[in-house]
């Protein structure tokens, strides 16, 4: 969807402000949100694409106002409720434990987490899918504006590029986000000249490489 998250090429956000000696987390709650997102991902109730979609669906004002981990928190709450793992009423309850019942043994344990630290399902698949393109081929990024999740940024749609390399076969985000099939296919790094994307005033030698799936590309 063309929501505010697709911000490549937008103006008006001001300078980039590096922070000296930045901590990993700026507050304890940020670390807890990060950990909860990682841990609940192991429950297998949504895909990485689906979790991105839950952020993309935030209202644009809420998205821009929120800090990074506030966005993650909102997205996680949305996914938990959408999958029925948690109810909206439970979320709205004041902080602290509910009734007296003993908690059942946890699904995501220390052992489960230890085995997956730094690891994730990156969507690579072993399926033998034929590649539509090979390095050096001229392609055009499709003009498409799906209302669901997609990973083709607005700024390359309709622009011509060249296949730089074939990364292999991966699940397709547009369908995978809503559990509508993995549709595995080749992903390529596609090289676009900066002037093709931004116009004649772009630096002549500069280029932008974007990773794009077969279903986002047409031959020129």
């Amino acid at each position: 969807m063309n929501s505010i998250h697709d911000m490549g090429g937008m103006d008006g956000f001001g300078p980039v402000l590096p922070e000296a000696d930045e901590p990993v987390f700026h507050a304890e709650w940020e670390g807890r949100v990060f950990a909860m997102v990682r841990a609940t991902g192991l429950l297998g109730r949504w895909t990485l694409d689906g979790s991105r979609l839950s952020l993309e669906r935030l209202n644009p004002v809420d998205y821009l106002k929120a800090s990074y981990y506030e966005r993650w928190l909102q997205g996680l709450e949305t996914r938990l409720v959408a999958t029925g793992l948690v109810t909206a009423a439970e979320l709205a309850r004041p902080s602290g434990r509910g009734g007296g019942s003993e908690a059942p043994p946890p699904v995501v344990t220390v052992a489960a987490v230890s085995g997956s630290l730094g690891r994730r399902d990156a969507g690579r698949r072993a399926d033998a899918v034929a590649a539509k393109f090979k390095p050096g081929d001229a392609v055009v990024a499709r003009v498409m504006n799906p209302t669901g999740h997609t990973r083709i940024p607005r700024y390359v749609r309709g622009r011509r590029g060249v296949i730089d390399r074939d990364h292999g076969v991966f699940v397709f985000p547009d369908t995978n986000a809503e559990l509508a099939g993995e549709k595995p296919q080749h992903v390529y790094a596609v090289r676009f000249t900066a002037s093709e994307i931004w116009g004649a005033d772009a630096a002549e030698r500069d280029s932008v490489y974007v990773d794009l799936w077969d279903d986002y590309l047409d031959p020129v």
Partner: protein
Amino acid sequence: MGKNHRHSEPLAETTLRVKALESLLIEKGLVDAAALDLIVEAYETKIGPRNGAGVVARAWVDPHFKERLLRDGSAAIAELGIEGVHDEGLVVVENTPTVHNLVVCTLCSCYPWPMLGLPPVWYKSDAYRARAVRDPRGVLRDFGIELAADIAIRVWDSTAELRYLVLPERPAGTDGMDAAALAALVTRDSMIGTARLAPVPARAAP
């Protein structure tokens, strides 16, 4: 001054909301608090840019490793025993005197965690995501770098599940240094592409 410093604002409400959510997940038997602790601890203390710096230094001292690294980053790094990286599809892109690489994720915040740890706030900021693809030279100026017009910039937008690591140029004045000494020179930002490594001044004779 925008999003980069929002984290310094009072966030009492958010803190309570996060605590409530954690209690709820534990109460419902979904996650173990100790598992959350383990994740936080790993990213606060273990998984960070030292991993990437080691890979970069190794490539500087070992041309065969460098060749393998640029051909298939994940496979080469697996040789070094850094966990989990081979799942990622790591792509290493090399800076040269005529090419400068810069990594961004315009659509969210994709970043090579196992190599660099969690991304800094500026990497995840709207300003960086919006401008890196359109005005990379302006972004580099925000980092104090004025890139010569005859250096070609390659911006890598991490739109898929590949993750990009920049192999910076080996600084002048480092002849004869071993991998450990070289690794200490490699900054996180130089592996994202928002810093270049300064030459090392000749040491005074002992």
